[in-house]
């Protein structure tokens, strides 16, 4: 199994809603990542978890709250988002933070109304 699975594939939410994005991998990878990608732009790194601990937070607003409950799962909790937060949210994983073997999920397309 060499997949990173993200759910849901699409999400529409209002600015007062609370929702969560989920990411799962069963490759035994110990590093997991959240990226945000706006249309026609490259992915921007948001968070990195290494061995279930947050190792990088790229100054992301607190309305985005990551969680890594175990080595296979990564969540992104969303609350009080703004319309400009609408984007494709990509999850990725690697063995131990090594970019040589970085696997991306298909993403969650988020629309904030």
């Amino acid at each position: 199994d060499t997949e990173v699975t993200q759910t849901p594939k699409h999400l529409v939410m209002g600015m007062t809603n609370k929702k969560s994005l989920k990411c799962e991998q069963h490759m035994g990878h110990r590093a997991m990542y959240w990226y945000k990608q706006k249309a026609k732009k490259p992915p921007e790194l948001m968070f990195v978890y290494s061995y279930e601990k947050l190792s990088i937070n790229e100054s992301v607003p607190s309305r985005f709250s990551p969680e890594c409950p175990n080595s296979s799962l990564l969540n992104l909790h969303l609350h009080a988002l703004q319309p400009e937060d609408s984007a494709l949210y990509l999850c990725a994983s690697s063995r131990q933070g090594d970019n040589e073997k970085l696997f991306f999920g298909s993403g969650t397309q988020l629309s904030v109304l």
Partner: protein
Amino acid sequence: AQSVTQLDSQVPVFEEAPVELRCNYSSSVSVYLFWYVQYPNQGLQLLLKYLSGSTLVKGINGFEAEFNKSQTSFHLRKPSVHISDTAEYFCAVSAAPSGNTPLVFGKGTRLSVIA
């Protein structure tokens, strides 16, 4: 720190013609280099990567790239494109070894293959 420049934001090309997508990088240390492809509403798929050894790297879907250290380039080529190659292509760089340093992406090149 590393940086990547993709010189062309859009490249239109006729079907079965050759294509080159250009990528230049900047780094004060040794690097790993990557090309990713992204189809509409999809994640990123690794096309090929240069880690060490031979400077000519072959990837999936008939693509290849050549690492040129003196010109700090890693251009992507395909001798004959298909309609299905229409997608966004991202060049990326990381320090070597990567040691938990994140990938740095270029701004992307939109390849449009015309029938």
